[in-house]
């Protein structure tokens, strides 16, 4: 861990992670989008370790601007309604590193695990992976400028509706 982070900034980053996990575990896509910066260049990428290692750009979800993050909310809550089997998730994370990027920004990495419970089914591991984030402290809270979720599964165990 960088020596430069203050307790207040560290707490804000922890609160941001908690807000993100809580949003997805409730299936609340609006709250998910609210963890991202309102700046037009805010981005969310979900990419396989396989493509990441091969240096290939293809992402499972490629939301390279704020508008596309907001559109993902609409796809899940409007366009896809009724087409997928409901499933609930539990996300668990462990912060691995945090380094200052200047201007109240931090490069943060965390390991994640996502458990999935399909309606009427058992609970299983959906995938694990690593979040690679650029986080900005804005006043007393933090937002994601960029979140890159690099998932471990070479073969995803099912189709995917919600972001990782």
């Amino acid at each position, binding site marked *: 861990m960088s020596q430069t982070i203050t307790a207040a900034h560290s707490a804000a980053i922890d609160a941001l992670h908690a807000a993100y996990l809580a949003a997805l575990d409730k299936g609340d896509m609006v709250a998910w989008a609210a963890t991202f910066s309102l700046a037009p260049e805010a981005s969310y990428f979900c990419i*396989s370790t*396989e493509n990441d290692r091969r240096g290939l750009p*293809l992402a499972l979800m*490629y939301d390279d601007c704020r508008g*596309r993050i907001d559109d993902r909310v609409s796809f899940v809550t*409007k366009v896809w309604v009724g087409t997928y089997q409901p499933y609930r998730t539990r996300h668990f994370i462990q912060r691995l590193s945090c380094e200052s990027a200047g201007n109240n920004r931090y490069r943060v990495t965390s390991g994640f695990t996502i458990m999935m419970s399909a309606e009427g089914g058992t609970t299983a591991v959906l995938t694990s992976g690593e979040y690679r984030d650029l986080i900005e402290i804005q006043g007393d809270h933090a937002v994601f400028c960029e979140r890159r979720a690099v998932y471990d599964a070479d*073969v*995803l165990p*099912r189709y995917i509706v919600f972001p990782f």
Partner: protein
Amino acid sequence: MNAPMTPFAKPWVANPDGYRVPYEVFTDQAYYDQEQEHIFRGETWSFVGLDAELPNKGDFKSTAIGDTPVIVTRDQTGQLHVFKNLCMHRGALLVRESRGNVKSFDCVYHQWSFDLTGALRGVPMRRGVRGEGGMSPAFDMANFGLDALRVEVMNGLIFASFSKSVEPLADYLGEGIVANIQRIFNRPIRIMGDYRQYIHGNWKLYAENTRDPYHGSLLHLFHSTFGLYRATQKGFTYMDPSNRHCLLKATASAAPTSASEDQEVYKDVRSYNTEFHLQDASVLAGRPEFEDRASLVINAIFPNLLIQQIANCLAVRQSITHAPNAFEIVWTLFGYADDDEEMQMIRMKQSNLVGPAGLISMEDGEAIEIVQDAVIRDGKKTSVLAMGGVHAGSVDHMITEGPIIGFWENYARYLKLGDELKK
């Protein structure tokens, strides 16, 4: 051989009210085993990869035809080979990595070594140790090369066959399908990456799904909502003379649809919404790049390949079977080597359309699984394929299930179910 193939006679006959397929084809292990022998290891050509995945001498990838593991490799002269991924000594997997670059394939078990042409080059302790043991004098290394498949490459698409007698690839595909391959693979490609997705259903449900223009604008509401494909657009359904393969093509701009006709056709659709607008329309902002201005081309090639062009989103999808109720889709998205930066970005943005979380493909996984779950104990019940007139063949519209009937007619032929029908 197990003998489950008796109950067919009635269900497989095309009645005037529909072609009927018994659901046991999706659940019964005996059908699955017959498919491996007569389709995937039979008189067919299976897609195994793109030559752009193996640019260098010594590159290899491991994949599967049906559920048989195979290695695709480029030897030191640049020639492509496909082998069973099976050591000729005691049957171990020779290659466990997905991809790599090697000088030889060395089995980890007893270190038998094969060169990139498949020839056996090394057997440790072949002449024994201190004069004791060793291989029999009758053992000839020349007889223990890797099991090689026939290989043909068409415009960078690598196909392989276990059959020595299957017709040449171009004849197997037919002129119309070859023309589409030449249309899409018209110059060197640049690979963008892979998606891999496990589906808890039978592989043939995906073969049906990809030959089914009827579901396109009904299951995938993104399509109809944003106009990439609506049933009111001009489209056609092409089948090759054997009816094994299918090419669905829709043209967004050929015949502008009227809002009132769309409203009538889709009046009962659950959430068709012409008022919905994107915050960022870049997912739909493409560049015309084919002379026919097709917005959607879905080309299913028997038995394991689909080639897609959806706007500027280009991909091949390979099916790998695991069990009667499980298969995998490997999607490889690509652009062209000469794409400018803007075009590369267009393709990246449109990649959200497809894959396991794709805006117009996520639901296919669900559609397959809900059929598999429902029919589990109703193997003698049948589906009904009647849309478009209960026959396979090319038509100048897309309101048809004819291509699915073509698939099943060929399936019955490969599994020799026709012999059962005649009894």
